[in-house]
């Protein structure tokens, strides 16, 4: 069986798919979040050196990973938007930016409240934290740039270029703890070595990571349905949607 994925490059055919998938993503996210929180806050034992302060890891690490990964996905959609001039690619990039900013904000705030009891400070201008703060400003900049340009197609191109220029920051964040001597610790979990943490803590962390994934996909899909209607309103297929005629939004 072959599926023509380009069919879903049209906003009109992607809209019903996104609209149906979004609530499922939120449902999966809620289940994983409940499981992850109960493992992380109740089941997992107290850490030998950090005490219970370490429990912030269950928010901090998933949010920090998502903040970088969402940016990479935005860069991917931006390449497609510039290369193929596909509208939906640019809409997906647009839909991801606020969730990326949220994840970056959570990573920074939880990091600060983890840093104070363990390092003795809420904030330091070290390479990891500074580059993550720049990521937050990049997300804000991309959102602001779009709002500043009236023509959506011009905004698509400008935002795609800014996203790709800003992508240089992602390897800087990721490798900052290797390249520079930072207050922030190196990675505890890597692809090439066994994780340096207890198994039950790792299970809680993995649940929270997948919860963050499901939540981010859900918000991106939910937001892109609004973006599609904003940009396609007046089209016959939008006028025929049941939610345009009193069905639940």
């Amino acid at each position, binding site marked *: 069986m072959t599926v023509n994925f380009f069919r879903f490059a049209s906003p009109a055919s992607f809209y019903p798919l996104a609209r149906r998938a979004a609530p499922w993503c939120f449902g999966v996210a809620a289940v994983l979040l409940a499981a992850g929180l109960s493992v992380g806050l109740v089941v997992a034992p107290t850490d030998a050196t950090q005490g219970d302060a370490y429990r912030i890891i269950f*928010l901090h690490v998933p949010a920090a990973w998502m903040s970088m990964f969402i940016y990479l996905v935005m860069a991917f959609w931006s390449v497609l938007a510039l290369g193929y001039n596909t509208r939906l690619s640019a809409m997906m990039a647009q839909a991801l930016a606020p969730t990326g900013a949220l994840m970056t*904000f*959570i990573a920074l705030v939880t990091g600060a409240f983890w840093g104070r009891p363990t390092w003795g400070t809420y904030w330091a201008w070290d390479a990891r934290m500074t580059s993550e703060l720049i990521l937050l400003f990049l997300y804000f900049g991309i959102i602001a740039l779009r709002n500043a340009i009236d023509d959506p197609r011009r905004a698509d191109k400008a935002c795609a270029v800014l996203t790709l220029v800003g992508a240089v920051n992602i390897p800087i964040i990721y490798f900052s703890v290797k390249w520079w001597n930072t207050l922030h610790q190196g990675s505890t979990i890597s692809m090439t070595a066994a994780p340096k943490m207890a198994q039950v803590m790792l299970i809680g962390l993995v649940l929270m990571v997948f919860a963050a994934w499901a939540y981010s996909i859900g918000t991106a899909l939910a937001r892109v349905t*609004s973006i599609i209607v*904003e940009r396609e309103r*007046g089209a016959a297929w939008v006028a025929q949607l049941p939610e345009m005629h009193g069905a639940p939004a």
Partner: protein
Amino acid sequence: MSEILAMGGYGFYVWTAYGVSAVAIAVEIALLRARRRRTLAEARLVDAEPEITTRSALDPGSLA
């Protein structure tokens, strides 16, 4: 229960981190819902506007 709230003396840091994150997520979800309602309301307005038609100068009797 009080043990979980105390977090071994780190309760303030742990619960502030979790609380701020929960509020931030709640705000995003509220904004998403508000945008969805506003978008559909605006699209209904566009839909309700009468179609723009112009009368041709060459043939005033017809609608181009």
